[in-house]
């Protein structure tokens, strides 16, 4: 196990506490940079989605994880970013301009959502953000002169500085990766400066934050705006990746997927957003695989245990019918969330830290290390 001896205040500020981090993140970045040369085009496309989901995950972490303001409206922010890009593209606005415009507009709308949210906490805020998402969805479907209504909008191929960047090209992947890395670095910078600490202070005790001189209302709005703006940027990339957008892509289910990203990844660290994004992007093909192969497998197992061909056939068709039930995916997502909240509240990144600690302390690891401790009574009066 490595012991860090801090000799300078710089040591508390550094992004990488020691050289080991630099090496491992360097290797990770190198692998990500050469990925297009050895991964199949299908996996590359999944990797692009991981980047986009992780960017939204980081945005949601700023708002929910660090400022403590729950949001089920991030699909709407993503939609606003995507539609802004698609709309401005019609007027031949160059990519850098509409990219920034989409982020800016989404940020402003995020701040506008933040204002009414100032008076709401917990479950009421969740309901408010859900209604915001539903309103946006409805506007997208009805405002046909701009959004083309339910017919959706076609998004032209991205052209950056006169070079066309197809959505399957390595360049597009590098662009998404760059946006993700810049988002993460910017967020880390924010978290180690006064604004980030004010966010965390608001999350843990608004009363104390206020009495330490934090303008709670201002910082909540800032948090909403930053989170929305990042989601808007991701929305532009999302639109280009799909090359076609319509209102039914930005439903409540997408917002829930974003919540899953941070819940499963872990809400206390930016690693969680990336791990959660990998999980959510990879679970989809996995579920499709199960849906296609489960009926056959179960019928095969039944046959080996002595079921006749007729019985096996009926089992197969029953399982297939069950697997293609409508809304099964949502149910599975729901079960996953419940299981994680119950058994792994720190998420995948928390699990990774536990595994790491186990090996660092081997053979002295204590099972009770991560037991939730008794929390002292906090004053509820001043809320």
């Amino acid at each position: 196990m490595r012991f860090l001896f801090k000799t300078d205040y710089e040591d508390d500020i550094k992004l990488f506490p020691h050289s080991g981090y630099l090496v491992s993140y360097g290797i990770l970045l190198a692998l990500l940079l050469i990925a297009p040369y050895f991964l199949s085009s299908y996996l590359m496309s999944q990797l692009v989605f991981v980047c986009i989901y992780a960017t939204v995950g980081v945005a949601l972490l700023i708002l929910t994880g660090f400022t403590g303001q729950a949001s089920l409206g991030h699909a709407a922010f993503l939609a606003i970013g995507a539609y802004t890009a698609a709309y401005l593209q019609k007027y031949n606005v160059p990519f850098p301009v509409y990219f920034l415009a989409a982020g800016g507009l989404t940020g402003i709308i995020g701040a506008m959502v933040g204002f009414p949210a100032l008076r709401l906490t917990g479950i009421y805020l969740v309901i408010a953000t859900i209604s915001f998402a539903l309103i946006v969805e409805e506007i997208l479907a009805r405002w046909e002169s701009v959004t083309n209504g339910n017919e959706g909008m076609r998004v032209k191929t991205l052209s950056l500085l006169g070079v066309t960047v197809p959505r399957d090209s390595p360049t597009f992947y590098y662009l998404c990766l760059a946006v993700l890395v810049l988002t993460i670095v910017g967020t880390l910078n924010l978290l180690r400066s006064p604004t980030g600490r004010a966010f965390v202070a608001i999350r843990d005790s608004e009363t104390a934050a206020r009495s330490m001189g934090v303008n709670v209302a201002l910082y909540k709005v800032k948090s909403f705006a930053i989170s929305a703006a990042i989601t808007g940027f991701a929305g532009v990339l999302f639109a280009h990746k799909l090359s076609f957008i319509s209102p039914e892509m930005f439903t409540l289910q997408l917002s829930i997927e974003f919540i899953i990203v941070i819940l499963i990844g872990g809400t206390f660290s930016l690693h969680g957003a990336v791990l959660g994004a990998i999980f959510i992007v990879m679970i989809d093909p996995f579920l499709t695989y199960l849906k296609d192969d489960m009926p056959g497998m179960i019928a095969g197992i039944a046959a080996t245990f002595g079921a006749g061909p007729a019985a096996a056939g009926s089992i197969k068709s029953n399982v297939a019918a069950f697997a293609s039930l409508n809304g099964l995916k949502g149910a599975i997502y729901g079960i996953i969330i419940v299981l994680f909240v119950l058994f792994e509240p720190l998420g995948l990144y928390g699990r990774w830290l536990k595994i790491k600690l186990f090996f660092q302390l081997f053979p002295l690891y204590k099972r009770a290390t991560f037991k939730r401790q008794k929390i002292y009574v906090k004053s509820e009066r001043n809320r």
Partner: protein
Amino acid sequence: MSYFRAENLSLHFGGLKAVDAVSFAVEKGEILSIIGPNGAGKSSIFNLISRIYRPTSGRIFFEDQDITEEPPYDIARLGIARTFQNIELFENATVLSNLLVGRHRHSTTQLWQELLFLPSVRSNEKLHRRRVEQVIEFLDLEPYRDKLISGLPYGVRKVIELARALCSEPKLILLDEPSSGLNVEETDDMSFWIRDMKSELGITVLMVEHDMSLVNRVSDRVIALNYGRVLAMGSPAEVQQHPDVVAAYLGA
């Protein structure tokens, strides 16, 4: 003119007069204790000063400035810091970042500068860190710098709350029952720190306290409250012998 002044301060919840026309003044550099039985309105006065509650009537002056209408976050900016009776720390953050939040009123950097972590932000951060380290040294918190609050014992949390208030370099500090839940030894430490705050850091202290031995040891003046009204004001010995105070504590 006094350094800090409350004039006819009242806080009514419907018919209940939690604080009823209380007037008092704090001189610069003194330690003033507020005592009184439970429910006398001591903490309510603190919550009025830090603007968690809005006074029903009355005015509050600090350095000859009327602060009755200031928003709560500006109270800290003016140099009034406070601690809470039931610790209000940022549970899921490290001790260091808790203390750095105390520096919030001194932060001057803009959001965009922080996103890029420009050299100005970096040098500011180092300055904050240095100031925080001075407080850590003052209160002997060295062993806990990188610990999460949620894993620390009650006594240490109490000290960290004091440290967080000190990090804002206040001119006036409001201590809400600094010794509640502390053992004898920790209370002794606390009394030394309160006196050092006055003599070394030049901070004016307004404190609510039940532990009379601590009150006797540190305070210059004492105010006794009951049912939201001032019963007596004066030196610790005078107030304790005042017939109204004896009646309030022991019954007439």
